[in-house]
């Protein structure tokens, strides 16, 4: 499970209000949400992002509200993965539950600049910065979460056990 894309890099504490502002929460439709993703922090994001691209953030990515619209919006823009130093806990759950791949790796975040070409391997947790020719290893997921990810979300995982 490898993926390659260009990086959009942001700072610490990227909150759910900038990922998808509340004024657009009047629709749960992923395509609709994707149109406004990151708008309040980077107006150009939705025009520039291409399928497979990667978002990189600092500490506490996704802090704030519990809106699952945030990982849903990111995924619907075509972003393949979010790499951050740490994730806010509700965003972390929501990403796993909705099947948005995320990776925690402070070293990679420090070593990746905006616009770099990066390849990630979700299976092994390897992050390869092609532009700079550097490699990083993300924390592996606990087995239980890996099962949810492999089932492509919590709902499918539960269906199997009901």
């Amino acid at each position, binding site marked *: 499970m490898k993926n390659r894309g260009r990086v959009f890099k942001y700072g610490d504490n990227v909150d759910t209000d900038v990922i998808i502002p509340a004024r657009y929460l009047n629709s749960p439709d992923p395509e609709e949400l994707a149109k406004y993703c990151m708008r*309040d922090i980077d107006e150009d994001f939705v025009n520039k992002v291409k399928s497979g691209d990667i978002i990189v953030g600092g500490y506490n990515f996704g802090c704030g509200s*519990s809106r699952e619209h945030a990982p*849903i919006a990111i995924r619907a823009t075509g972003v393949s993965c979010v790499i951050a130093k740490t994730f806010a*806990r509700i965003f972390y759950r929501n990403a796993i*539950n909705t099947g948005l791949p995320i990776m925690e790796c402070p070293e990679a975040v420090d070593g990746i600049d905006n616009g770099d070409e990066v390849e990630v391997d979700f299976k092994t947790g390897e992050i390869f910065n092609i532009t700079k020719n550097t490699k990083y290893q993300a924390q592996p997921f606990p087995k239980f979460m890996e099962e949810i990810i492999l089932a492509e979300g919590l*709902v499918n995982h539960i269906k199997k056990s009901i």
Partner: protein
Amino acid sequence: MGMTMTQKILAAHAGLEKVEAGQLIEANLDLVLGNDVTTPVAINEFEKINVKDVFDKSKVAIVPDHFTPNKDIKTAQLCKMVREFANEKEIENYFEVGQMGIEHGLIPEKGLVVPGDVAIGADSHTCTYGALGAFSTGIGSTDMAAGMATGKCWFKVPSAIKFVLTGKPTKWVSGKDIILHIIGMIGVDGALYKSMEFVGDGIQHLSMDDRFTIANMAIEAGGKNGIFIVDDKTLDYVKEHSTKEYTIYTPDEDAVYDEVYEIDLSTIRPTVAFPHLPDNTRTIDEVRDIKIDQVVIGSCTNGRLDDLRVAAKIFKGRKVAKGVRVIVFPVTQKTYLQALREGLIEIFIEAGIVVSTPTCGPCLGGHMGILADGERAVATTNRNFVGRMGHPGSEVYLASPAVAAASALTGKITNPEDIM
């Protein structure tokens, strides 16, 4: 090695003798909550799971509060979807406009959470009920769907930070100042993935409303939950509002904490969080000449009776400053009615304030008081992120009801001690 309060509650709900920080468990739920923004997404997921009914009709609560009374056609459609689901599944605790309030004010008031419970809600401020000595935490819509279907939720058992509160706060210092002080001290990710446990004999000086405010903002420090030890005040509250059975948990003597902070409440000053993060705090003594356009008093953080009473005390017989718009929104219908009976609403209106029906409204930039580019607000809400209350170029300063009211009278951020 002993367990924290949170760990004991989680162990009991997972049917385990003992749990440790980091352990993954599945816990039985006493309450699953959702609102008009998160429930529609949960309904879609619930339908995929292929179960007919929710696990327990009395243990699911749905409160349309974010965009209600419906602000436009799209939100009306969302609420219709939620209403139909609630009817079809015979959800006992569905609260329509007229009976509703902001969820985190309403749920304790309706007695739906009691000490020792495990509650999850598809809203990040579900951590509010920790004030009652319950474990409660925010989750997403998919977790809500799974919770409604199975009555269970997976958790990673959190480690904890202990806050030992001592001393008595001074006159104009409230729960809001205490929690802003704490967030300023540990940062917006200072309690990431962790429980914040509040103990110590300073707690006796905090009303239940103060405790709700403090637990409410645990999430603003990144916390999984905030939880208070149970005392007589808690039990009085529970007896007044609920007939549910409760269990009191206390932390073990030898419970392990990542950190312990001792905080003397008598030294805390009125505190304000500057844009654009709740940890960007200053004491009122460090604030100079910040002119404001709007004041918002209310929300699930500070829309309770204590909050309205303090504000009314300051507004009584006075008028808001020229050029400042002031909006008060009580947290529930019951709070609204009581405020009316006590004459607080009259004081507000005579001061030149608008009083809104209970709704999340301006708190999340939904409706009822959105900010324009370059405008500044003092709000008793809990988040001051970029664009939270409207235009990305607007600014939100978080403060207590007392500071907000004093500021409304002068048109700039003001220490209540200076005018009272």
